[in-house]
């Protein structure tokens, strides 16, 4: 009876949370529109351009969803690590490492000569491992020396970003052969067999295999977090490491594993971006997806469905924003403003709900 009442209460809170999130998004969009209007751009032009870019064509929809994939994977990794009270802000670096590994494996690792679906699977795995190791290093630092993982993952991101630069600048590494003076500092395009196959086979709707893979991973992570002993232990470690240690929960392996997994999801995001969209490694390969993914994770407040929702929101916002700049001359930075307002509003709402809950 009491349990039922409790569940009902939680459901109600869940619903309120969803409504608050929707209200925050609406508010932020209204502010964004007001800003557009204040710049003297006709609102209708901006809205049409935004809608065109975000969901105006099958291609636009697919592009938005592909953006959401990368954001969502990083966000899921964030939520996973956050369950153990670890804050992984290194998504950007983990994406970069994933991109490097996927490129190397596709071009020079011999992946393209493998049979069946292996040519595109092997680079994906390599990317996940590379991202995982990058996250795992932060885990080792945390477990052995107590380095704050916020600082270590962030700084390792910068190292990774410059590693990408180095890779595409040096012919010994991943730069394409310099045949003439016009060769850009980027890698060769990866062989077709290593590209992620399209779901529909229609290039006008470039949804690729990353989508189902990411969805399966999301379901697995959600189950692991909420329905397994391991998930419960992670929560114990996050809430009270001392008590968890006394209760015989191995803290160090938990930290290592969870940061490795978060990094692996980031690395996988990098592989999706490379093998599913960009096809060659460029200097500005990741361009902020890691940091946006972190925000997606933050907004989800620990829930995997929340990650999916906010990743989709941000994916569509980004696509729409880019087109708004191209077609209507509104700086796409306006999308950043909207993102910022959403975050602030939600954080404020969360704070307010906590206060109400504690009965003050």
């Amino acid at each position, binding site marked *: 009876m009491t349990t039922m*009442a409790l569940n009902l209460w939680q459901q109600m809170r869940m619903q309120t949370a969803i409504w608050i999130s929707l209200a925050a998004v609406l508010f932020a969009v209204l502010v964004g529109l007001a800003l557009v209007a204040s710049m003297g751009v006709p609102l209708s032009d901006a809205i049409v351009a935004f809608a065109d870019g975000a969901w105006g064509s099958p291609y636009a929809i697919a592009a938005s969803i592909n953006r959401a994939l990368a954001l969502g994977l990083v966000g899921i990794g964030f939520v996973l690590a956050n369950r153990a009270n670890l804050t992984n802000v290194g998504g950007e670096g983990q994406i970069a490492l994933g991109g490097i590994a996927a490129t190397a494996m596709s071009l020079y690792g011999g992946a393209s000569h493998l049979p069946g679906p292996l040519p595109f699977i092997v680079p994906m795995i390599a990317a996940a491992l590379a991202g995982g190791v990058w996250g795992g290093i932060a885990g080792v630092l945390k477990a052995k020396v107590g380095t704050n993982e916020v600082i270590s993952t962030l700084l390792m991101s910068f190292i990774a970003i410059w590693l990408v630069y180095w890779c595409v600048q040096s012919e010994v590494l991943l730069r394409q052969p310099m045949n003439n003076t016009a060769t850009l500092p980027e890698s060769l395009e990866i062989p077709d067999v290593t590209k992620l196959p399209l779901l529909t086979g229609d290039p006008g709707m470039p949804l690729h295999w990353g989508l189902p893979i990411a969805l399966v991973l999301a379901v697995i992570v959600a189950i692991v977090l909420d*329905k397994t002993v391991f998930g419960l232990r992670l*929560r*114990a470690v996050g809430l009270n490491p001392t008590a968890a240690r006394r*209760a015989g929960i191995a803290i160090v392996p938990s930290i290592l594993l969870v940061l490795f997994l978060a990094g692996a999801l980031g690395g996988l995001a990098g592989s999706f971006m490379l093998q599913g969209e960009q096809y060659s490694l460029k200097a500005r390969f990741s361009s902020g997806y890691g940091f946006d993914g972190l925000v997606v994770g933050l907004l989800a407040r620990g829930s995997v469905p929340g990650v999916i929702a906010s990743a989709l929101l941000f994916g569509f916002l980004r696509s729409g924003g880019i087109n708004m700049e191209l077609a209507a001359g509104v700086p796409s930075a306006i999308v950043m403003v909207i993102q910022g307002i959403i975050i602030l509003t939600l954080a404020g709402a969360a704070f307010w709900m906590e206060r109400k809950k504690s009965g*003050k």
Partner: protein
Amino acid sequence: MQLAEHPLEAGAAAVMEPPPLLSLRGMGKRFGSLQALDGVSVEIASGEIHCLLGENGAGKSTLCNLVFGVYQPDAGVMQFGGREYRPSGPADALTQGIAMVHQHFSLVPDLSVVDNLLLGQARGILKRGECAQRVRTLSENYGLALDPFARIRDLSVGERQRVEIVKCLMREPRLLVLDEPTAVLLPIEIEGLLQVCQRVAAQGCGVVLVTHKLAEIKKIAHRVTVLRGGRVVATSNDPANEIDLLVRAMIQRDLEGLDASASAMFGAPATDAPEQDREIGHRIEDEALQVNGLTVRDAEGVARLDNFTLIVNRGEIVGIAGVEGNGQSELAAVLAGMLPATDGRFFVAGKNMTGKSPQEVTAAGVGVVPEDRHAVACITGMSLAENLFLNRLDRFKRWGLLDRKALRESARALMQEFDVRAAGPDLSFGSLSGGNQQKAVLGRELTTEGLVLLLAAQPTRGLDVGAVEAVYGQIRKACERGVGVLLISSELDELISVADRIVVLYRGRIMGHCVAHASERERIGAMMAGHVE
């Protein structure tokens, strides 16, 4: 004294001649499904020491928090100094002349006493000298010895509490509320605190003291209000002579029926009966724990625990006496596998467990009831069921998933066995009263598989009579089935009545061994203070 059938009548009957300083009428407060307070009426006069008595979860703290404006009441009217009183928050309560000393202190450890006092008040330039002078004056007036420029970090718990009290007194309150102030203090510090309360009251300030130690009530209370289940169940204008009745009202049982050791701890005379029981009861000769020259040095190289050697047999309760901070925490931490020893070894049932992890220590059959429940024993943000099986969650794995149903059912069984009172196993652990939390921790540790040794550090701290009795009962029961018990406590009376023999620790070293008998009280006391005979 009167037992209240109807709370409002009780309030009306207790009206004194001069208008009361603070009057509460029909106060109600609900948290979720829990009615924490229900129609509580209390009156407090100037210059009066009014004790609030009640078991854990009776609503004492909630009532104090309503008065101090931490919570807003759902029902009821408050009057302070003859006017309606409706504090919007603690700051408002302070301005209106009500100050409160909480169970948990809010001091910045790295700042000095004076800086901490100035934190909440100063604008502009800090007048440290002036403040220090006021601290000294207050110290003298109320007997609160304090060095105004000492760092909080270097102060004992008792001294920190004095800082909190000075912080309150600097506001010159008309009412001072102290929420279980003696729970954290040493016997000698308690004495001092009670004197401070008396002096504060003598200055015309009203004092509300939350406690469940009857000895304190006997000593200083002018009036007592007993709460149970969020209601006023009794009031007394002559508490010193009505202790028995108050206890009966508090727990609805007679004091004579209580566990003898529980009543000893709460100031009632203990009979010698259990001593004889003990002689017959155990003595199954077999080592549960052997400690060989255990030494712990801190970062500065000071020996916190110095060459500690001890044997605990199965079916025996060995008490570790000593003023806190004399190596008990280090001893408990090493034996629990939480702290590496600098030197020495220890064996559990003949197996060397030195330097093993907490997990291995538990696997060897050691149950641990840690000193700091919230930091080490439980996770307040998780449910009761999850906490009850925190160290053996694997038991509920089914096809890789967590079998919540089985977990819930096992939790219910354990709750029943150890009398953990909560609405259900899914309740958040943090919402349980201290007594029920401790019973849950004890239940978990006593059901450790292959239990050989129970390590209990200050297991009854902050608990009320009923819970203390339950904890002792469970410890004795374990002992009877052949578990060795190492009981660390700073309550000498508790050790004398529960343990078979007592080892006294002073500055990390064993000062001496005694049988646990009231006649050894003086000797143990002297050894605790560092005197060797």
